[in-house]
């Protein structure tokens, strides 16, 4: 069975429990579900919000490419990726990855792989809004994220 990833790019919030439930409903072949939720931190009280800009169309297409690469690499029984855009306050959800498989290693690795490539390949950009009312500008890309993506052979 070929798994079709569920990919969404949207402003509205997601519910991890509901998304997990919809992925597993009626299934008895799933042994492991790994979810990753990325949240907005307040950076020690400094940050009022993150504003996520994205490239509509390419964002969905690029996430789908990464998801398809994961499905080709690991024996997944389900895969959901949701990435939000717009203004997100501290404590709010930014991104969700759910990977399901018969075995735990595949689920862990696929979710980690998805996140490494979302960080470095999906066309989203974060701007910081400070509690002082100013914007401190665009978040710089981190070398560690390129290093993390480099752990996996190229997709």
């Amino acid at each position, binding site marked *: 069975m070929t798994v079709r990833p569920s990919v969404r790019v949207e402003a509205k919030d997601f519910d991890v429990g509901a998304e997990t439930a919809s992925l597993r409903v009626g299934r008895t072949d799933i042994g492991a579900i790994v979810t990753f939720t990325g949240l907005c931190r307040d950076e020690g009280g400094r940050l009022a919000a993150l504003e996520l800009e*994205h*490239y509509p169309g*390419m964002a969905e297409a690029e996430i789908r490419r990464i998801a398809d690469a994961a499905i080709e690499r690991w024996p997944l029984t389900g895969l959901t990726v949701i990435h939000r855009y717009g203004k997100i306050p501290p404590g709010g959800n930014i991104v969700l990855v759910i990977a399901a498989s018969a075995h735990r290693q595949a689920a862990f690795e696929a979710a980690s792989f998805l996140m490494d490539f979302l*960080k470095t390949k999906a*066309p*989203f*950009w974060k701007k910081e809004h400070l509690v002082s009312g100013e914007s401190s500008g665009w978040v710089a890309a981190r070398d560690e994220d390129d290093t993390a993506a480099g752990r996996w052979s190229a997709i």
Partner: protein
Amino acid sequence: MQIRYFAWVRERVGLEQEELDLPAGIQTVGDLINHLKGLDDNHAAAFADQEAVRVAVDQEHADADRPLAGAREIAFFPPMTGG
């Protein structure tokens, strides 16, 4: 050709997108960047640190030597910081 800009590249150019008729001789993404830099100070500022600008051709990541033949939409943006 449709040109799109995102994040600080967009802010420096001062435009979200523009439709440009390209002069003959512009074959690659690299040629296009050189052309854009010559348009005005805003474009020059956006591409001043050219290494920091990423490119997508028809919504797929591309390099400077990517040919433009057949392309409809070129986008320029900083390294991605989603996830």
